[in-house]
């Protein structure tokens, strides 16, 4: 028990680090005038969702099932009954901590779609409502005792359905309501810092070992399988993305390498403890190539999913979840409890369950996100004014600028009403 607890505590910290990693992965891709807002949307999720999680989110996800659709939010309100040093912590406090990180990053993933334009308050309102109405129930469907997807027997080891498809569909629903960035797609919106993007992708990969191998809930052979598959598929996806770029665009890019890594991580997430090496290679390679192509869909259909949350997370989540119907193998699952996919002689049932579960989550999340988008727009306005957006959302929403390397932008204490200015004046008077 102690070994398992140690690994799950470690994994929880690893998964928390994914969100700052995601913040930099996304932050490097936006323009320099909106990088702080992107980091803040991710950190905002760490603040807000953690609080919601311990107050009622955990209970809504893992409480006693109410009709297989959500856990009883009052059963463990404020973690009541769980704050005890007795018993197995991986079924108590450590489980709460580990799964809190999943809720945080799932909401943060959506931020990439609404870069540069969404009011910070509107984002927090959306994030809190979406977590409550979509993430907590959907995580219950997939992982809660008695949740309908779990009962049905569809597979989602670490969150291809509950996290990635869910967040990707929400991103699509939200951007359709929120609208395009001013000037998109005519104006260039180049990434302002690709080293941030690479750094963020590296941190994501590192943290993802906790996400996938931690989901074994034990320091055992299943965790080992999940871990090595998180290497195999991710590596294959990076190569797949770069190969497609080399053939289509002429050059393999660093943004492509970072994006391929994330696409592979997304796709292997539901499958990491259910496939062998060949399955992981297939999932990774296909996710790398298909996601690299799918990021172009937004130009064809005219939705401004700014940082390709749909192209990477929705498409990658669908690929990993649905491919399990083909490449799942019982040979890697202990105690003969595994199921085989089609190519290992399994029945078509598994594929059917995989498709049904992921499609229902996609439709539910997308529709509720769009409805919440309208609601948030009505209450807060949703977006900053076009002038503020053009000048930069960092200044408009946070009264800060990210980069002032040589101090060349200037700045002095303002005269009116500022505590700093008053203190500075007093100090000067006392010196003279």
């Amino acid at each position, binding site marked *: 028990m102690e070994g398992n607890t140690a690994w799950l505590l470690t994994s929880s910290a690893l998964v928390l680090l994914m969100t700052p990693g995601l913040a930099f992965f996304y932050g490097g891709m936006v323009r320099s005038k909106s990088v702080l807002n992107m980091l803040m949307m991710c950190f905002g999720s760490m603040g807000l969702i953690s609080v919601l999680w311990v107050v009622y989110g955990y209970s809504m996800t893992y409480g006693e099932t109410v009709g297989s659709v959500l856990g009883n939010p009052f059963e463990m309100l404020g973690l009541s009954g769980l704050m005890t040093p007795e018993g197995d912590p991986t079924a108590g406090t450590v489980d709460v901590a580990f799964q809190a990180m999943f809720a945080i990053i799932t909401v943060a993933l959506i931020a990439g779609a609404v870069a540069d334009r969404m009011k910070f308050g509107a984002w927090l309102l959306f994030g809190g409502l979406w977590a409550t109405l979509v993430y907590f129930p959907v995580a219950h469907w997939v992982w809660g005792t008695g949740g309908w997807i779990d009962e049905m027997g569809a597979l989602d080891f670490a969150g291809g359905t509950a996290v990635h498809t869910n967040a990707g569909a929400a991103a699509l629903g939200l951007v359709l309501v929120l609208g395009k960035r001013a000037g998109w*797609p005519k104006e260039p919106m180049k990434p302002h810092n690709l080293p941030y993007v690479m750094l963020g992708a590296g941190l994501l990969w590192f943290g993802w070992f906790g996400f996938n191998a931690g989901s074994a809930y034990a320091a055992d052979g299943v965790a080992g399988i999940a871990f090595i598959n998180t290497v195999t598929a991710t590596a294959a996806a990076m190569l797949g993305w770069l190969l497609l*770029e080399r053939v289509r665009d002429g050059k393999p890019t660093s943004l492509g390498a970072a994006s391929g890594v994330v696409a592979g991580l997304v796709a292997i997430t539901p499958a990491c403890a259910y496939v062998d090496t060949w399955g992981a290679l297939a999932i990774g390679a296909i996710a790398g190539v298909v996601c690299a192509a799918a990021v172009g869909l937004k130009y064809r259909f005219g939705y401004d999913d700014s940082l390709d949350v749909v192209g990477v997370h929705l498409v990658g989540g669908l690929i990993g979840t649905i491919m399990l119907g083909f490449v799942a193998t019982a040979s890697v699952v202990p105690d003969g409890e595994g199921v085989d996919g089609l190519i290992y002689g399994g029945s078509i049932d598994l594929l059917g369950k995989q498709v049904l579960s992921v499609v229902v989550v996609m439709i539910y999340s997308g529709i509720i996100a769009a409805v919440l988008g309208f609601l948030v727009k009505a209450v807060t306005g949703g977006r900053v004014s076009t002038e503020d957006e053009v000048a930069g959302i960092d200044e408009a929403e946070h009264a800060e600028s990210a980069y002032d390397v040589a101090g060349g932008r200037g700045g002095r204490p303002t005269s009116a009403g500022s505590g700093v200015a008053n203190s500075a004046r007093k100090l000067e008077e006392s010196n003279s």
Partner: protein
Amino acid sequence: MKLITAIIKPFTLDDVRSALEQLGVLGMTVSEVQGYGRQKGHTEIYRGAEYAVDFVAKLKVEVVTDDAGVDKVIEAVAGAAHTGKIGDGKVWVTSVDTVVRVRTGERGADAL
């Protein structure tokens, strides 16, 4: 006095600086600039989206010298920045009315 302004390829800066140092030029100002001439820009690709980037990164080197030193400075800069390929840059000369050394208040050629 003259202000000599040179737009050069960034990697030639160190050669330009040492050529000027050998002439006895005691100071210069360098800034990162972008622009285009006959070299034009280039294409960048991000997740398959192609961008025509019109402006090329260059350095601007500014040196103030007395009238007698102008030709030598031009030759030194142009020689050190020369690669023979398109995009080597430009050097131009403008007249300077006066110069003040802030520390001492000296004016004109004494301030150089």
